[in-house]
């Protein structure tokens, strides 16, 4: 109830951007474009959900982009260069990503290191490792259309609807989102996660196994990042160690924070993250579709609109909460 009101501002901006883009470029609402948008938003939504789990505990994960690089580059490399079967590669890499996330969690909880620092080291290390392992070579699936790749770029035709099909990553996102939503809002684990983010000492006093829950959140973030990395590379077909996934942690965190997560912890909504992720993708799409916006100011437009969205959000919140208090 409270969470949903929070999203009105950003939802409004999303709708506004979509309407304006449609006016300037009708092809925005073509089936093909919508499919593209859904696929991209799904990919960023998945890593956004991962980021939000960690953010809810009051932590942060800066290593998302580099972990995407690690998984994204190793997948095609192991399959095509080393020649391992995909049935082994995919689970192995997802487990690796989960374990790496778990390591972050262990360092944060057991050694009490700051999450920012731990995952910053991750950001450097995973990218360096990937570049080292692949010796800076691009890794790609080559020309062979592996069955695996339909996970990333496949389309699921709906009975009775022509010309439009659900992108496979969207289906995966929906599954992940539903599970995460339940986890966060309907299970004890999720309740404890939020409590830790609100007040870790209080959570500890209530007998919550704070460390375990936190490590779990980092591990889940690792897993979701791994899934994201896999889908990204299945979609693009190849990955370059030096820049695959660069800055994606910022997009993931931006989606989470736009969607109502507070970096102080304790707050967050899965639906918000999805809207946040979509907003960024729609914006990037709009910039190419609308004539006359030079490509070079893309970032400025994205930044400006995000800022407008948060300000709108805040304005709406102030408007709806009649009483003010200083605290």
């Amino acid at each position, binding site marked *: 109830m409270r969470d949903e009101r929070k999203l009105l501002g950003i939802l409004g901006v999303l709708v506004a951007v979509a309407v304006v883009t449609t006016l300037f470029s009708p092809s925005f609402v073509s089936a093909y474009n919508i499919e593209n948008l859904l696929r991209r938003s799904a990919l960023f939504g998945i890593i956004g959900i991962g980021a939000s789990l960690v953010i809810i505990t009051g932590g942060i994960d800066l290593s998302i982009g580099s972990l995407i690089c690690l998984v994204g580059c190793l997948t095609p490399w192991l399959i095509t260069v080393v020649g391992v079967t995909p049935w082994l590669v995919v689970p192995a890499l997802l487990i690796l990503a989960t374990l790496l996330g778990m390591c972050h969690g262990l360092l944060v909880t057991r050694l009490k290191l700051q999450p920012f620092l731990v995952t910053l080291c991750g950001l450097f290390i995973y990218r360096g490792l990937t570049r080292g392992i692949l010796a800076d070579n691009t890794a790609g699936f080559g020309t062979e259309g592996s069955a695996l790749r339909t996970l990333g770029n496949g389309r699921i035709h709906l009975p009775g609807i022509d010309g439009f099909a659900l992108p496979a990553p969207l289906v995966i996102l929906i599954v992940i989102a539903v599970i995460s939503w*339940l986890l966060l809002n*309907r*299970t*004890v684990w999720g*309740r*404890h996660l*939020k*409590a830790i983010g*609100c*007040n870790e*000492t*209080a*959570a*500890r*006093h*209530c*007998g*919550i*196994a704070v460390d375990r829950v936190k490590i779990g959140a980092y591990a889940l973030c690792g897993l979701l990042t791994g899934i994201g990395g896999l889908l990204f590379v299945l979609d693009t077909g190849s990955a370059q160690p030096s820049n695959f996934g660069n800055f994606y942690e910022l997009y993931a965190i931006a989606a989470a924070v736009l969607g109502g997560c507070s970096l102080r912890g*304790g*707050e967050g909504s899965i639906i918000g993250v999805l809207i946040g992720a979509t907003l960024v993708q729609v914006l990037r799409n709009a910039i190419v579709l609308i004539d006359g916006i030079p490509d070079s100011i893309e970032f400025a437009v994205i930044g400006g609109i995000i800022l407008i969205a948060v300000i709108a959000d805040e304005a709406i919140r102030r408007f709806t909460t009649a*009483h*003010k*208090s*200083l*605290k």
Partner: protein
Amino acid sequence: MTSSEPLIEACSVTKRFGGVCAVDAVSLSIRGGEITAIIGENGAGKSTLVKLLCGVHRADEGEVRIDGQTVAMNGPADALSLGIAHIPQELELCDAMSVSQNLLLGCEPIGRFGLIDEDQCLRQARHSLEKVSLEIPLDVPVRDLGHGQRQLIAIARALDGDARVLFLDEPTATLSPAETTILLDQIVAMKTAGAAIVLITHRLAEVEQVADRVMVLRDGHPVASLAGDEVERSEMVRLMVGRDLEPIQEQETTSGEVRLLIKDLTSSAHPDPIHLEVRAGERIALAGLVGAGRSELLEALFGLRDRTGVVEVDGITIPPIDPARSVEMGLALVPEERASQGLALQMTVEQNAVLPGIHRHGGAFGWLERRAGEKVARQLVESLDVRPAATDLAVSELSGGNQQKVVIGKWLALHPGVLLLDEPTRGVDVGAREELHQRLMQLSKDGVAILFSSSEMEEVLSLSHRVVVLHEGRITGNLTTSNTSEEQIMALATGGDPR
């Protein structure tokens, strides 16, 4: 009812913090069906002893036994699993979460598919609130509640579990007599059911009322252990403080001109306009139940909350929501929650002491006059008897009562013209409280206007010239203290008729 086997024992436990020996070879056995009170001056080591017994701290020497077995608890989770619950001295709640979520944190009922059973949650939450007679909606975030209400939630949570041993560290410090009675009834009921209760409090009347045994600590040493019938107030004071307390004799002061004027004040917690005058040399007490709106009134005056109406200090109007300006005008507010509102816990005593008046201690170009700051801090530590008497210690390393002294002291150092205090002696021991009262009387003699809220009837009656009673944000009585009684105030506070 008393079972012979102790549920939990401390066997000559010692805990040192750096050079300070907070608890020195203390042994204590706690049995089911008994209420044990631990009393002692501020910094005597009460909280530390309790923290050792419930796994927050690990003892440097000695051991903790539960049911005769030596255990090494690693945090409150272990303690809870052994049936040991603890309400710490400083409130710890998840502010952004709702009342029911806070009440059930850590023991959420699980329904189908491993999901939380929300209906069951609400039922249990309502039940726990009934125990402490708190009537608030279950879905509001606890940050929207007053301090006393939040304290009751923390208590309700601990009462509700199936704890065999319950440690309460100054649970009643901000509760008014009505709530205190309910709480004490509850723990007596728990005791009768066989649980062991350990109560830390500075309100000796409560000890007299419920304690079966009393342990007195001084400087980390156990100095005495009294059993049921020996528990008597003056004896406890003598054991704690090492001397008898003289009842203070107040010299007559005449009130002067109006220093604080409140006209037509309304705010979110005060639907009806409030009028109030505080004259120089006058001490006015705000009385009321938990959530009556006393803290909110003080905060609104000081400029921490939105309000309408006029507030004047010495004839000059104070703008709303501008605490910096209020400080400039000679207004000071000792807040209710020292940890969250009063102190920068990681900073030292000295840094905290000069924080509000730092402009005045500052030299040219905003330069820090460190020697002046040091002087202010030393004065504070000496005059209020903060222990240990060091100024370069992080405030977080002080005991609760000593932290409170720092909060009060930093405002006194500013020599305000109008002093607002919210539960000023919360957590302060009896000896120090008398001294503090004397300080306040001296201040009013010097022409300071004092408006304070207190939940302790004794304090209200002994310290004030007049009592203003609030009920649900409205003033229900404005009485001259010498002509009133505890019963009359309580009747007004509960919204009833003052007979």
